[in-house]
């Protein structure tokens, strides 16, 4: 059943390329809100679903792009394994292909790595309708340019991802959450000090004077870390899942939501705005209407970038403007993969 779908997909893309007719590549549509907006005929990847190969002892899973994230995660959980980067779903229909295209990672990212770090291989159809395979199902692979990781976060503008191989990890045996009351500057310093010590830290989040730190690992290691770190052990309930899915009160959908990705030790910024800080200080969520230019200037001064993640006025540009020399490479790469400019045009930048 796999090959007829791919053959038809290639044919359709060739046809669109010949007509220069845009395609909006789409999985579950749960991340339609993300990016600059979709144009063109919808290319639905949901039918191309299923786990192609999963060998728990290899720590590798290969999956078709249309597979729902919940399905993949439950198959891994049955073997006590996981996608360590904790991808946000943002809805029941979320697919793994969409997760890779969006390139978003969850609370564990700062401590185990990002989605792209766990991508081992991809099969993609480029804008010329060519069915291509890069990377593979092995942990170490340096043959050819790492196109697979380039696909992560490219928002489908370079190719239609059809299959992905991931490295997966064992689920930690034990998890707990510690609670501290600290202001933002002290909390940021504290989480960075912890990260410089061999502690089984797996997530941090600070909001309004409250710092939560999650520990994951062998029960004995978590217990020993608890003693070293102090604080109050709490039952986090669904907190970390709610943080990942942006279901916490902070993320109330009526406001614009900005995501500032900055060096973890950056000083507190965007004074006067409601904030939630995760990833050991590396991501500062800003809720409410903020001035795009000044947020971007502040993030850039710190060495980072600002994304208008959800809502707000997209005419200011969802993604941080690129330096001209970097933009030149982007345009040429887009042209190298999709010369007719038909794959999700304008979803990321002007091309």
């Amino acid at each position, binding site marked *: 059943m796999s090959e007829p779908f791919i053959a038809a997909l290639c044919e359709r893309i060739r046809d669109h390329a010949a007509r220069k007719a845009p395609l909006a590549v789409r999985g579950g549509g749960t991340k339609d809100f993300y990016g600059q907006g979709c144009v063109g005929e919808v290319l639905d990847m949901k039918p191309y679903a299923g786990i192609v190969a999963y060998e728990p002892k290899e720590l590798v899973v290969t999956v078709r792009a249309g597979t729902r994230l919940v399905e993949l995660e439950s198959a891994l959980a049955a073997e006590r394994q996981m996608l360590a980067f904790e991808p946000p779903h943002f809805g029941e229909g979320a697919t793994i292909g969409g997760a890779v295209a969006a390139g978003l990672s969850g609370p564990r990212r700062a401590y185990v790595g990002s989605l792209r770090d766990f991508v081992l291989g991809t099969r993609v159809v480029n804008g010329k309708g060519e069915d291509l395979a890069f990377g593979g199902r092995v942990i170490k692979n340096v043959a050819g340019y790492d196109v697979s990781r*380039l696909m992560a976060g490219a928002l489908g503008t370079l190719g239609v991802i059809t299959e992905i191989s991931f490295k997966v990890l064992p689920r930690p045996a034990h998890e707990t959450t510690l609670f501290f009351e600290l202001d933002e500057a002290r909390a940021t310093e504290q989480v960075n000090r912890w990260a410089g010590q061999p502690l089984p830290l797996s997530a941090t989040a600070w909001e309004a004077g409250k710092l939560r730190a999650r520990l994951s690992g062998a029960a004995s290691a978590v217990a020993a870390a608890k003693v070293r770190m102090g604080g109050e052990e709490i039952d986090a309930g669904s907190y970390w899942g709610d943080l990942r899915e942006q279901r916490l009160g902070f993320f109330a959908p009526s406001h614009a939501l900005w995501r500032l990705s900055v060096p973890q030790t950056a000083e507190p910024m965007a004074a006067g705005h409601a904030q939630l800080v995760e990833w050991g200080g590396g991501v500062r969520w800003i809720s409410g209407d903020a001035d795009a230019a000044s947020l971007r200037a502040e993030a850039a001064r710190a060495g980072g970038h600002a994304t208008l993640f959800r809502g707000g006025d997209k005419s200011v540009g969802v993604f941080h403007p690129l330096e001209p020399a970097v933009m030149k490479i982007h345009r040429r790469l887009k042209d190298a993969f999709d010369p007719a400019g038909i794959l999700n045009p304008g979803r990321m930048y002007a091309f």
Partner: protein
Amino acid sequence: MSAVSEVSSNASAIAIRRSTVAAELARVLAPESVLVEREALMPYECDGLSAYRATPLVAVIPADEQEVAAVLAVARATHTPVVARGSGTGLSGGALPHAEGILLSLAKFKRIVAVDPLARLARVQPGVTNLRISQQVAPLGLYYAPDPSSQIACSIGGNVAENSGGVHCLKYGLTVHNILKVRAITIEGDVVDIGSDALDSAGYDLLAIVTGSEGLLAITLEVTVRLLPKPETACVVMASFADVESAGEAVANVIGAGIVPAGLEMMDKLATSAVEGFVHAGYDLEAEAILLAESDGTHEEVAHEIEKMIEVMRASGATQIRCSSNDAERLRFWSGRKAAFPAVGRISPDYYCIDGSIPRGALAKVLKRTEELSERYGLRCANVFHAGDGNLHPLILYDANIPGELETTERFASDILELCIEVGGTITGEHGVGIEKINQMCTQFRPAELAQFHAIKAAFDPEGLLNPGKGVPTLHRCAEYGAMRVKGGALPHPDLPRF
């Protein structure tokens, strides 16, 4: 025209070109930074893959970014290829000079620019050696995780070019997982920050594509690496097995038990016997294979993991298990693994190191087939490898002085690499394609994929001046290679025009 006069007219054309390019370079660099004499160029003739040699047109040793930019401007103006070189320890010929090109050494870029202990970052110039970073930050309780065997000498710029690994990749990843930013210069002279000091950047993940690009896309000027806290403790389990298959099975069982060891290495009997006489690591010489499995972390984590690993090894049929009781013993257990290549060099005049990567499940099959090939070609083969991540390093023992033996070795090596592809693996796990594996790229990738690689190259380097002829074969080359290797009556690229 006779062959001899063709060679000499070619040589005189090169001599003319050498003086033209050298004159241009002399205008922008100090005289001692431009090398043109044959003796001065000799040290640059090859990298760690010494079977391939070429004399560059000119070698330059720029002292700063402005000088690198000036060299690239000369290269553009004179349309001269540029090959960047770090420490020259690469094993795939990635830094092999281009006979009509400039060899650009980054040896003067040796500064650790800044270390930020709280942010756990170090900003270093590309010529800094891998090990120096860890040594420099050791007093802070930090280290840089990727540890290729050549870490004493290899440069971080070369590590970025090759996406180097080491023995701790399964747990700590490759270079691409341990760097945040590369400041690079393109052949067009644009200085670009690829990545950032934050955990991600706007736009495409250019850092992923530049890391491991073998000097074909841009030249690294500075690297920001991530530092990790040094584990509180580490301990290694050494287990013996009566056959290679059960050792392979034990590897799978350790990982199946939910353990991600810091290192998991295998050595076969030929390797351990070569090594034991060299370093006296205390290896079990009766065993057909030994496994070295390391756990690191907090005392509690390590105690827990070691106990579990011993249990799994025993259940997988280990005939002897030993556990390092202190750091000196741990390092002794490792010493043999780390010295494996030079040790094999003692029992054979020459050896050829292979770098295939396979799914762990295919380990037993590949090892068995390698043994059969070894018999067929009449060459011994020692196996030393990163078992935990399926990265094989078979060492073929040969004697270059015996006519034809190098060619036989290359055929043997090529068969092993194609076997890796057949079982779903890859022709290079960590050493890179360079010039060495360029033909096998034709087997691993289809023409459309190779064409996509060339298009990526052109996005960074439209005129193809950076390290041309490496990493990605031309379709023409693949057609010729395919014609040489018809397998089972079928050409690997039936849809390609033949020349």
